[in-house]
């Protein structure tokens, strides 16, 4: 990017560089979606189990889930990433950057989704629980047929919000050399010495992804308010 001083100061954004590195950005875009999607699926599973554990009356299960959630939510994702990325090879286990990223993102988002699931379940009116038990359902059937379906509807907006956070968190995976959007920008910068074209293009791609999801979340919230 050059600052060209003529009569007026104009900025020239070198689109040729963007065009030249378009394959890199496209691959990185799909890699970002890939790692976000896989992590989200696993995080949802972890979050569902964790949420159920957190509302459990069993003190041991409840405390284990609480410790997990508090530990993850009080430490930065970067620290968790370093712990996994440097810790596992030290004890001899080697993962690919993709797997390391998925593990770190799953554990991190899983804790936040645990809280979302827990608040969703607690938001279902108590009358539903009482009615189910009075019909004679056991805990498992009550959860499966009555409580969880209603909780699921409640938690969709915050879940979409959490997936936006997840997509933005993938940018830290550039540190462990996984070629997602931020790493693509770094590659462009390293090869062409054009930081603007690299980082701004990545920023625009992230913005498009997140903007679409944020609008979708707002649409879902409005629909929920109608009901």
């Amino acid at each position, binding site marked *: *990017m*050059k*600052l060209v001083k003529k009569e007026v100061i104009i*900025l020239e954004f070198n689109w040729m560089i963007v065009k030249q590195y378009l394959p890199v950005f496209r691959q990185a875009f799909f890699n970002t979606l890939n790692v976000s999607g896989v992590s989200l699926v696993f995080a949802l599973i972890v979050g569902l189990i964790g949420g159920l554990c957190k509302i459990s009356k069993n003190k041991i299960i409840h405390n284990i889930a609480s410790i997990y959630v*508090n*530990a993850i*939510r*009080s*430490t*930065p*994702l*970067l*620290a*968790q990433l*370093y*712990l996994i990325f*440097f*810790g596992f090879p*030290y*004890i001899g286990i080697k993962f690919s950057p993709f797997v390391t990223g998925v593990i770190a993102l799953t554990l991190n988002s899983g804790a936040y989704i645990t809280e979302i699931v827990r608040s969703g379940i607690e938001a279902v009116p108590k009358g539903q629980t009482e009615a189910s038990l009075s019909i004679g359902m056991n805990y498992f059937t009550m959860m499966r047929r009555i409580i969880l379906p209603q909780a699921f509807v409640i938690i969709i907006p915050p879940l979409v919000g959490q997936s936006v956070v997840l997509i*933005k*968190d993938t*940018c*830290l995976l*550039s*540190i462990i050399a996984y070629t997602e959007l*931020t790493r693509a*920008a770094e590659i462009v*910068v390293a090869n062409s010495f054009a*930081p*603007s074209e690299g*980082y*701004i293009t*990545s*920023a625009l791609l*992230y*913005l498009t992804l*997140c*903007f679409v999801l*944020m609008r979708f979340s707002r649409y879902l919230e409005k629909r929920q308010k109608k009901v």
Partner: protein
Amino acid sequence: MNNIIEISQHSIPFLVKGLGVTAYLALISGVFAVIIGIIAGISRGSKIFIIRIISSIYVTVFRGTPFLIQLYIVFFVLPSFGMTFNVLQAGIGTLAFNSGAYIAEIVRAGIEAIPKEQSEAALSLGMTPFLEMRLIIMPQVIRIIIPPLVGQLILLVKDTSVISLIGIFDLIKVGRELTIASGENPIIIYTWVAVFYFVLCYPLYVFSIKIEKKLKLKY
């Protein structure tokens, strides 16, 4: 076991210094972020089109892009525009603006939660919009937004770790350098890093729960 104690004893003094840097970054950025967030949050609902549009674009852009990308842009791209910052300025400034965008959303949600009757009553008393904000709306808003605000400040403390990637020697960078320099067990060192972040963040979390209970009782 002795090995663990030995490594811990060697690394903890350095980690504590890093913890000081992290706390300093978080404090300065936090103060600026709250100020920026309140201004942007109020501007989001402004009747003046240009103020509303600028603050909306600011909030959308800073909430829709990762903090690391924002940091890289401020540190590597802005110099082409003539604005050069050192690592500390770039880190604190970007963090303040990043968290400010989230705080703006929190403030806006708080303002929209105040019943419209309050606003109408204030204006019918002859208050200017500025007085209405200062005397009626904002005191009620501040009470409502304290729990999510503290939550955002916890995220701010954790985001200071990302600033280490442009070179600031905060807690996590100290941990990383210790691991590389000494080649010792990274699990022990990073666990201590996590413990120190926990010591910084968990009290804030407990504080937010206590404040939420206290504010609920006041009603």
